């Protein structure tokens, strides 16, 4: 396993950056994501404007990979429609499972493409996907509203 392909500068930067790490003043939806076996625990907060993710943020604790993945996801979904956000989450999860492998199909994920090789580190896959599964749960609830 090449550590360089996981602990990249980009991922470290995101894991230490706090620009998405806060509570929203009036969140419309809070979704908790938790990896019980390792303790990564995030609270994803979302504010809708009609069908648009107007603002997203998170709090919680976890490893560099879970924190970076959450932060990158939030950068990506801010201002996107519910459908677009859902599509991004599905694309990310398909990338991790190596269902989508072409870089050109993954470009929509922007910085989050950095996790493309996480499956080389099987023990850490659940850290990388936590935020995206949490987002999917939140979106499910938005749809059923």
């Amino acid at each position, binding site marked *: 396993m090449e*550590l360089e392909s*996981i*602990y990249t500068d980009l991922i470290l930067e995101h894991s230490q950056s706090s620009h998405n790490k806060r509570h929203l003043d009036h969140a419309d939806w809070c979704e908790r994501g938790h990896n019980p076996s*390792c*303790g990564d625990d995030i609270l994803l907060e979302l504010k809708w404007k009609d069908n648009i993710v107007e603002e997203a943020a998170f709090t919680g604790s976890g490893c*560099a990979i879970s924190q970076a993945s959450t932060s990158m996801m939030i950068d990506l979904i801010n201002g996107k429609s519910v459908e677009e956000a859902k599509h991004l989450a599905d694309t990310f999860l398909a990338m991790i499972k190596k269902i989508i492998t072409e870089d050109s199909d993954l470009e929509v994920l922007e910085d989050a493409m950095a996790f493309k090789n996480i499956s080389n*580190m099987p023990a*850490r896959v659940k*850290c990388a996907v936590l935020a995206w599964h949490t987002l999917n749960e939140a979106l499910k609830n938005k749809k059923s509203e």
Partner: protein
Amino acid sequence: MKNFDLNSIRKDFPTLFQSVNGKPLVYLDNAATTHKPQVVLDAISDYYRNFNANPHRGAHYLGVTATDMYENARETVQKFVNAKSTREIIFTKNASEALNLIAYSYGMSLIEEGDEIVICISEHHSNIVPWQQVAKHKKATLKYLYINPSFTLDMDEVYSKITDKTKLVSIAQMSNVLGTIYPVKEIAEYAHGMGAKIVVDAAQSIPHMKVDVQDINADFMVFSGHKMLGPMGIGVLYGKEELLEMMPPFLMGGDMIEYVEEQSTTYAQLPQKFEAGTPNVGGAVGLAAAIGYLKELGIEEIHKHERKLTSYALSRLKELPYVKVYGPEQLDQRGAVISFHMDGCHPHDVASIVDTYGVALRAGHHCAQPLMKYLQAPATSRVSFYFYNTINEVDILIDSLKQVRKWLGHGA
């Protein structure tokens, strides 16, 4: 007694000699499970290759031999823990099953509304969750002994929490997170004075120190084979004979019965009463071989070497200003388990990164979530030694921890 020659001891363990990520394996996760010496692997293989029959049944040669091997293993365990009789030794799947057996059989039938069960905050989930269930079903109260800021237990805490309402105290002799060794003999004496019974969870202690159930005066004691060189899937429950006699069976089925009528059954004598179904003979034989190996090495020699490793590791960790150790500083109050947190480095990143240097350590809550909450630590990294670890391996650990800081962008 064997001469404690580390090089020749290590050669007894085939799994230790392998590369992980191109580096020699440095296995520091012995509190999770230990590696197996060749004699244990041979004993298991010999049983399945040459004997392999269902014990306690039938009169054929293999069946009789399998029964003898299984019962000889029981006698080995009895002597190892200094129980009075083999009727006091019940084979289980592991320490967790043994604790469940006590909770469901003793707890559910003998604990009543308003009674108290006392455990320690540093218990493993296996010594928490079954008691929560008993307390819930019997409307009893589950109380915790809290540790002090030095990660040890004050006897005053014991005196104030164990009362005449306490029916049962269940405590690990050594914490799998902190390494703290608790004074179970003193606790047992006080608990008995209050009319309570005591369960000693020796899963972490018995691989490293002499555990004498009569000396401790434990009412019950449990441990797992795989944490002391034995195979997975075999564990032990020790119980005082008079207590086991009055307890109802835990699992029902073959091998634990005397007479079965259409609507009723009488149960077999101890220890069969608590061993329903075909037992793990290969596991018991492997465990007996493991005990034989430990005895030959000498538990005192093991303790001495592990103390040296722990002392050295603690002093080397102290050199790193960003490391905080969760556990007692005094060597006589602790075993060879060291939990720590590295500032700015999540334990999972630590574990993944040191793995690339061949170092196996554990990260997470170590099946002790209430303790982690009490310590206000979301997770820790943990190294745990066994007698086959070397001082050089501690140095490799420290070097790889320094690399973790670099990888995570904190400089050296």
